[in-house]
C-alpha cells in the first residue's frame, strides 16, 4: 500500500504532465457501481455490518452471563454459602470438559488469537471459537470465576468478522484486517467505550495507524456500541462521582498510586508468567480438574468473606468508588482478586483479564487514596477519583497499553479534569512495569503458546532509520541546467565523480554520467544546454526525515538520489545511493 503522497516522495508536477492524458471518466452504471463498491469502500460498508453483528453477539453474551449468574449464584447480593462454593466448582468441571473436547480454541487470550489471525493465519479464526468462547466464558463468569467479559467479546467479534470475510472471499489483505475490525467491535460493545476499543486494537493488535484501517475499525466500533446501547442502554460501566484536582501538589499522591500500581502490575503479570506454564505442564488428566479446583478455591475465598472477588466485579468497583469500603478492606480485596484471577486464568478457564485488571486497579487506587487521606486529610480527591485513576494505572502497568489506559479512564468517567492525574500515575506505573517486567503480558502469553507474534511494545519503541542516517554530503559541484554540455565537459577531470547532479529550473533535479557527457560531445551536442538534453529525465528526490525504506524505491532506478531541504527543494542537503543504504542497514543490524 502506497502510504506516501506525491509531494512526500518528491515527484514533481512535470512527472504528472509527462503521463499520457487520462481518458474521460466512465459514467456508465457499471462504472458507477464499481466505484461505489471498490474493495476499500465495500470494506468500510462491511465494517458497519461487522459492528452490528458483533454488537448483537455481545448483547447476547451479556444476557447469557447474567442469566448464568442468576441461575447459578442466585439473584440476591447476599449469596448462599452452598452456591458460593458449588457453582464455580461444578461450572469449572463442565468448562474443562467443553474446552478439552469441544472447543479447544476457546482457551487463551482473545487478543493474542486475533493477533495470530492477523499475522499468521491470514485472518482466519474458526467460528467454533466464537461459539466456544460464548458458552464457556458465560458459564465461567456467571458462576463466579474471576474473569471478565471483554476479552471473550473481542474474540467473538473477531471470529464473526473472520467468518464473514471468508464467506465473502475477501482479498488476503482485507482478510488479515478483518479480525481486528471485529475485535474492535466486540471490545467496544463490551466496554461501552468505542474510543478505547479503537485505540486498544490499534495499539495492541494492529500496531500501526493508517486511514484505511482506522476508518474500518472506527465504523465497526461505533456501530457495535450503537447496537449495544439500543438493547442495554447508554449508561457507562460505573457511576462516577465528581472528580476534582484542587491543588497541583496532589499529583504527588497520584504518583504514589502510580508506583504502587506499577508494583502490583508486576506482581500480577509475574504470577501469570510463572504459574501458567507450570499448570500447563501438569499431566493432561489434571486439566479436567484445574478449572474446577480454581472455582472451589475462589468459592472458598468468597465463603470466607470476600464474595466481591467473584465474576467481573463491576458492581463492587462502583461501590468502592462510592466509598463503601475502608482502605484496609480495599487493599485486601485487591490482593484477593489478584489471587482469584491468577487461579482462574492459569487453570485455563476461558475469560478475559480486562475486568479483573480494572477491579484490582480500582481497589488499589481507592486503598492508596484512603491511606493517603489518613495521613494527609487535606487531599481533595474522593475514593472515586483514586479508584478511577487506579483503573488506568493497572491498565497501563499490566496490559501495557498506555494510550488506551488514559482514554479508557476519560471515556468511562466522562470527565477531562482527571487527565493530568491519570497521565502522571499511568506513566509511573508503565515505567516501573517495563523496568521490572521487560516483556508485556500479551507477549509472555504468546511465547508460552509457542507463537512468534510481533510485540507491539517493541514495535512502538523500535528505532526507525531515516534518510539522514544514510546520506552523505554532496562532494562535487552541482551542475546548472543552463550550462552547455561543452562547458561541463571541459570542467571534468580525473577527480570528478561518475554521476553528476543537475539542478533544473524552477525546481527539480536530474542526473547525468560522465560517460553520457562524453558521448554528447562526440555526437556534436556540445553546444546544447543540459536542460535541453536532459528533458524528460527528471529524477525523484528525498528529504532527510523520510524513512530509509522510502529510499529503497528509488535507489535502483537512479545511481544517485538527491536529498533536499523541505523548505527549499533547490537546497541540496546530501546525496544517497544504493551502497549508502545497504551499508547503513548492515551497520544497524550489527549494532
Amino acid at each position, binding site marked *: 500500500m502506497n502510504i506516501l503522497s506525491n509531494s512526500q516522495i518528491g515527484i514533481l508536477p512535470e512527472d504528472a504532465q509527462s503521463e499520457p492524458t487520462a481518458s474521460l471518466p466512465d459514467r456508465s452504471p*457499471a462504472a458507477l457501481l464499481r466505484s461505489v*463498491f471498490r474493495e476499500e469502500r*465495500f470494506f468500510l460498508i*462491511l465494517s458497519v455490518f461487522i459492528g*452490528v453483528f458483533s454488537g*448483537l453477539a455481545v448483547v447476547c453474551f451479556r444476557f447469557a452471563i447474567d442469566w448464568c449468574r442468576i441461575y447459578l449464584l442466585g439473584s440476591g*447480593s447476599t449469596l448462599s454459602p452452598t452456591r458460593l462454593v458449588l457453582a464455580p466448582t461444578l461450572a469449572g468441571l463442565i468448562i474443562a470438559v467443553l474446552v478439552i473436547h469441544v472447543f479447544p480454541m476457546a482457551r487463551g487470550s482473545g487478543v493474542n488469537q486475533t493477533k495470530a489471525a492477523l499475522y499468521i493465519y491470514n485472518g482466519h479464526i474458526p467460528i467454533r471459537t466464537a461459539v466456544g468462547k460464548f458458552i464457556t466464558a458465560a458459564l465461567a463468569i456467571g458462576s463466579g470465576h474471576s474473569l471478565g467479559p471483554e476479552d471473550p467479546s473481542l474474540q467473538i467479534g473477531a471470529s464473526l468478522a473472520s467468518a464473514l470475510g471468508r464467506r465473502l472471499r475477501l482479498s488476503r489483505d482485507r482478510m488479515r484486517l478483518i479480525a481486528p475490525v471485529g475485535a474492535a467491535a466486540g471490545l467496544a460493545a463490551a466496554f461501552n467505550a468505542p474510543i478505547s476499543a479503537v485505540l486498544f486494537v490499534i495499539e495492541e493488535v494492529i500496531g500501526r495507524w493508517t486511514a484505511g484501517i482506522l476508518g474500518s475499525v472506527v465504523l465497526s466500533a461505533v456501530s457495535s456500541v450503537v447496537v449495544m446501547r439500543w438493547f442495554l442502554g447508554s*449508561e457507562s460501566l460505573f457511576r462516577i*462521582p465528581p472528580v476534582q484536582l484542587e491543588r497541583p501538589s496532589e499529583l504527588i499522591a497520584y504518583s504514589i498510586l502510580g508506583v504502587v500500581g506499577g508494583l502490583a502490575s508486576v506482581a500480577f503479570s509475574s504470577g501469570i508468567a510463572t504459574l501458567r506454564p507450570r499448570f500447563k505442564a501438569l499431566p493432561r488428566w489434571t486439566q479436567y480438574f484445574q478449572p474446577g479446583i480454581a472455582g472451589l478455591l475462589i468459592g472458598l475465598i468468597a465463603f470466607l468473606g470476600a464474595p466481591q472477588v467473584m465474576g467481573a466485579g463491576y458492581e463492587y468497583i462502583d461501590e468502592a468508588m462510592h466509598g463503601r469500603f475502608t482502605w484496609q478492606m480495599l487493599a485486601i480485596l485487591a490482593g484477593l482478586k489478584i489471587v482469584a484471577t491468577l487461579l482462574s486464568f492459569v487453570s485455563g478457564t476461558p475469560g478475559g483479564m480486562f475486568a479483573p485488571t480494572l477491579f484490582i486497579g480500582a481497589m488499589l487506587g481507592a486503598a492508596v487514596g484512603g491511606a493517603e487521606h489518613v495521613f494527609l486529610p487535606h487531599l481533595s480527591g474522593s475514593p472515586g477519583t483514586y479508584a478511577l485513576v487506579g483503573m488506568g494505572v493497572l491498565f497501563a502497568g499490566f496490559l501495557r497499553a498506555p494510550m488506551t489506559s488514559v482514554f479508557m479512564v476519560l471515556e468511562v468517567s466522562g470527565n477531562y479534569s482527571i487527565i493530568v492525574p491519570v497521565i502522571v500515575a499511568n506513566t509511573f506505573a508503565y515505567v516501573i512495569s517495563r523496568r521490572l517486567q521487560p516483556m508485556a503480558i500479551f507477549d509472555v502469553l504468546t511465547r508460552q503458546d509457542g507463537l512468534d507474534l510481533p510485540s507491539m511494545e517493541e514495535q512502538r519503541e523500535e528505532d526507525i532509520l531515516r534518510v539522514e542516517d544514510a546520506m552523505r554530503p554532496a562532494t562535487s559541484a552541482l551542475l546548472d541546467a543552463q550550462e552547455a554540455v561543452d562547458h561541463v565537459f571541459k570542467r571534468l577531470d580525473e577527480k570528478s565523480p561518475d554521476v553528476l547532479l543537475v539542478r533544473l529550473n524552477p525546481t527539480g533535479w536530474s542526473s547525468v554520467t560522465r560517460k553520457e557527457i562524453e558521448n554528447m560531445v562526440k555526437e556534436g551536442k556540445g553546444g546544447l544546454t543540459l536542460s535541453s538534453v536532459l528533458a524528460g529525465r527528471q529524477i525523484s528526490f528525498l528529504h532527510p526525515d523520510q524513512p530509509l525504506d522510502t529510499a529503497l524505491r528509488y535507489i535502483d532506478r537512479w545511481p544517485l538520489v538527491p536529498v533536499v531541504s523541505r523548505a527549499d527543494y533547490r537546497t541540496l542537503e546530501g546525496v544517497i545511493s544504493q551502497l549508502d543504504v545497504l551499508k547503513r542497514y548492515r551497520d544497524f543490524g550489527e549494532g
Partner: protein
Amino acid sequence: MIGEQKGRALQLYLTREPVILAMLSALAVVFFLAVTGLSHLYHAQQESLANRWFNRGATDLKERRFESAVSDFRTALLYSRDNYSYQLNLAEALIGLKRTNEAFSYLINLWEREPENGFVNLDLARIAAQKGETEQALRYYHNAIYAAWPDDQQVERRDARLELVDFLLSINARAQAQAELLALAANLPNDPFQQTRVGDLFLRAQDYENALAEYRLSLKADHHNSAAVTAAGIAAFQLGRYALAQRYLQSAVATNPSDAQSAARLKTTELVLQMDPFQRQLSVAQRNLVVIEAFAAGGQRLKSCFGTAGSAGATSSGASSSLAESWAKMKRQITEPGLRRDPDLIEAAMELVFDIEHQTNTACGNPSDADTALLLIAKMHEGN
C-alpha cells in the same frame, strides 16, 4: 460490443456486492428481531428482580432496618443500574446507618443528574450540616426550598425551610434564621399547628414580636392550644408586655398546674405588675406606696449584698458605698408625705433603686423575686 461488455459488468456487480449487502441487511434484521425477543425476556426478568428487591428495601427502610435496606437496594441496583429512585433510597438508608460519606457520593451523582431534585438537595443539606460545612448546607437547603417536589410542593418546601431555620438556629445565625422565618410566615396556611411551630422558631430566634403574632394567630383558630398559650406568655413576658403575659400565663397554669416554669414566670410577672410605679392606672397614693416598697427592697438588696458578698463588695466598694450613701441620704425623703410633696422624687428614687439592682446583680447575683421584678421594670423603662 462495448455496450454488451458494460451490460455484463453491470450484471456481475449486481450479482455480487449489492446482493451481498442486501443479504447482510436481511440477516441483520433477522438477528436484530431475534435479539429483541431475547432482550424483552431479559429486561422483564431484570425489572421484576429489581422491583422485588426495591420493595423489600423500601419496607426495610420504613421499618428502619437500614442494614437490610442497604443490601436490598444494592441488589435492586444490580438489575436497574441507573435507577434514580433506587439510588436515592440507598443513599437514605446509608444516612440511616450514618455512612454519610458513602451516601454523599451517591447523592452527589444524583444531584449532577437532577440538580433541581428536592429530596436530593435536602439529603445533601443534612449531610453538609452534619459535617459542619455551613456554606454547602445553606446552598443545598436553599436549593431544596426552591426545588421541584413530586407531591405536595408547598408542604415540602415549607418543611425544608423549617429545617433550614432549625439549622441556622443551631449555629447561632439568628439574623438569617429570622429572615427565613419571615419569608416562611408570609406564606403560612391557617394551620394552628404550623403557626405554633413557626412561633416556637421565632421564639428561639428571639424575635418575640413575631413569635407572639404567630401564637395569637394560632390561638385564634384553637383557643385551647396549651403549648401556644404558654409560649405566647413567654413571648409577651420577653417583650415586657406583662399584663398580656399575665393573662396567658394564668391560662397556662390553670390548664396545666404542674407547669412549674410557667408558674414561676407568672409569679415574676405579677410582681412586676405590682412593683412598677410607672403604670398609668395607679393612683398617686398607690404609686407612692409602690415606690416606697421598691425603695425598701433596693435598700434590703444593698444590705444583703454587701453583708454577704465580701469579695464582691471589695471589688466594687467605691460604687457600692456611693450607692449606700445615696440611698441613706434619700431614705428620709421617701415617705408618703415626702413623695406627695415632691413627685419628682419618684423618678429619682426609682433610678437609684434600678442602679442598686443592676450593681448588686452584677456583684452578687441570685436576686430575690422582688429584685428580679425590679430588674425587669428597670429594663422596661430604660429606653424611656
